[in-house]
């Protein structure tokens, strides 16, 4: 039973749920005991790594011992800079099983962003794939006192063959911090979302039960494991049921999607809506008979894409909704498929409750308001940001900043973001991130960044620039200026120079001089 005195008010629920495990390491150990010879992990690629449950546990234990020998102890934080790989997962489970906190970092972000996360999370060690040595080398000198370890292959995580692997297992509770996931922040720097073992286990259990996962479940993980969607829906949720996971590097997954499903008999996968659009655009047809369903979240799924996809590939799509702050999903459309309401993001999961509020007041069915969530899968808060915490987690609810409604049957519908967040292909990007880069240019007087509608990615990035009076700049020059200063996916697709416009002479602002992003969006749509 959950001890309410050990969790925040926004993590408590009216209904009482009993958790089966005390921590993620215990979940893995129990499943190893139940299914030692069953396949746990498949990593298609050059080496085609494949692990049974017991094989995986052996290498995880050896890596855990290695971490301890490197001086790491319970509550220490370690950063993992990897694309989807067996090395990432071994370090992930090894760290969690000895009480370390894992801070996964997207290797594709700019070097200065990686450094910020390492420093902000106060991590004691950084493990990175050798392919990113060129990035880590640039910041190594600034990371005084932090252990830096390059990992080329699993061999780098292993102890000598005759080494004893026994070690003292620290006590790890549900309330201990398991991971810190960095997500885009309103001020420009990413913010660290703190998630406990309870958060991970609650969300994994909910999703596993929602879709009736079992030992035959085999999830294809093509979303990055440095985000929660990949970690929970296609790794911990099938693990909860004793199933298997196929992990693939996202960049090579789309071309091979239907091949991977067929070759490895995947039964489930989780995607962003943009992936469905891309698969629809390819001349590749489904050849498997294994795929049962696709979970889709992270950006708006249009009815037309859903209908076309289901008609052509004959597989149901289950739309859901969640944020990093709710571990992954907090609601999913009804399962099996005939319980779905098309266009809805579904009903709240077993381990969280949801409601629509308008300035802290309940609203009636079908009335728009802010989507608010509480429960065991809701984060305790952002690392070191009390102001943001008190604003976002208040009156016993996590206020998502998203608008929507709930119908009389308890199904939720997503309407949009309250703030100016851009969601491009499922990646959250705050305007300030790119604006901070643009403002480094000496000839820019003012700028504002907005999301513009994009059929494939949901939104693309558009920057409005006001150049200083005696200067001149072109769109191409500005694009070149941004290169390398911010992650590739945050680069502007379109740059509009206000000085060249006849119907807009300034960036629109409100009475407090706050930029009116909404007005810029209206202008863009009107003039497209």
């Amino acid at each position: 039973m959950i001890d309410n005195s050990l969790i925040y008010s926004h993590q408590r629920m009216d209904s009482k749920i009993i958790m089966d495990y005390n921590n993620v390491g215990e979940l893995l150990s129990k499943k190893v005991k139940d299914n030692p010879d069953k396949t746990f992990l498949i990593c298609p690629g050059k080496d085609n790594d494949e692990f049974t449950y017991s094989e995986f546990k052996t290498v995880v234990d050896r890596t855990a011992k290695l971490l301890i020998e490197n001086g790491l102890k319970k509550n220490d934080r370690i950063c993992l800079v990897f694309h989807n790989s067996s090395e990432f997962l071994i370090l992930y489970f090894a760290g969690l099983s000895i009480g370390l906190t894992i801070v996964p970092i997207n290797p594709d972000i700019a070097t200065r962003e990686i450094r910020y996360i390492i420093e902000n999370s106060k991590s004691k060690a950084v493990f990175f794939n050798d392919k990113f040595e060129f990035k880590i080398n640039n910041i190594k000198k600034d990371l005084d006192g932090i252990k830096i370890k390059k990992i080329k292959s699993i061999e780098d995580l292993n102890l000598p063959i005759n080494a004893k692997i026994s070690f003292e297992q620290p006590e790890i509770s549900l309330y201990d911090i398991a991971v810190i996931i960095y997500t885009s922040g309103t001020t420009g720097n990413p913010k660290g979302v703190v998630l406990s073992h309870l958060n991970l286990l609650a969300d994994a259990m909910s999703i596993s039960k929602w879709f009736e996962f079992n030992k035959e479940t085999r999830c294809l993980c093509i979303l990055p494991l440095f985000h929660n969607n990949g970690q929970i829906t296609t790794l911990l949720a099938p693990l909860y049921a004793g199933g298997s996971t196929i992990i693939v590097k996202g960049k090579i997954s789309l071309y091979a999607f239907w091949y991977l499903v067929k070759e490895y008999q995947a039964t489930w996968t989780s995607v962003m809506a943009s992936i469905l659009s891309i698969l629809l655009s390819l001349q590749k047809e489904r050849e498997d008979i294994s795929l049962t369903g696709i979970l889709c979240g992270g950006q708006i799924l249009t009815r037309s894409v859903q209908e076309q996809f289901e008609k052509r590939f004959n597989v149901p799509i289950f739309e859901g909704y969640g944020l990093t702050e709710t571990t992954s999903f907090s609601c999913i459309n009804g399962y099996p498929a005939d319980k779905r309401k098309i266009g809805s993001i579904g009903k709240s999961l077993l381990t969280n409750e949801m409601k629509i509020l308008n300035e802290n007041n309940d609203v009636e069915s079908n009335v728009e308001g802010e989507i608010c969530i509480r429960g065991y899968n809701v984060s305790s808060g952002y690392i070191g940001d009390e102001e943001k915490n008190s604003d976002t987690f208040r009156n016993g609810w996590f206020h998502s900043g998203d608008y929507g409604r709930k119908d009389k049957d308890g199904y939720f519908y997503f309407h949009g973001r309250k703030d100016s967040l851009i969601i491009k292909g499922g990646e959250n990007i705050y305007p300030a991130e790119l604006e901070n880069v643009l403002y480094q240019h000496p000839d820019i007087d003012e700028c504002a960044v907005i999301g513009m509608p994009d059929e494939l990615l949901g939104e693309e990035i558009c920057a409005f620039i006001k150049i200083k009076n005696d200067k001149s700049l072109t769109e191409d020059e500005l694009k070149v200026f941004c290169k390398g200063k911010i992650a590739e996916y945050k680069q502007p697709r379109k740059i509009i120079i206000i000085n060249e416009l006849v119907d807009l002479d300034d960036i629109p602002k409100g009475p407090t001089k706050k930029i009116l992003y909404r007005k810029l969006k209206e202008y863009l749509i009107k003039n497209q």
Partner: protein
Amino acid sequence: MKYHNKELDEKLVKILKETFKTNEINSEDTMEQIPAWDSMKHFQMITAVEKEFNIEINISDTFEMVSIPAIKDKILKYLNDR
């Protein structure tokens, strides 16, 4: 058609420059070193290679095409097998 190494290199670099919209392509670059190399560009690159060299690449081989030397190796394998 037989390709000389130099000719293959030139054709491949042209494809990569066009696909990734950059002039900064080095012969040893990996996927990680080219920021624009994402899942969609990976797809476009393989399609362009197939078209240019008139080959059909097995999907399982595409998993290994994550660096310029590896792409070159695969192209040579298909050309030699023809």
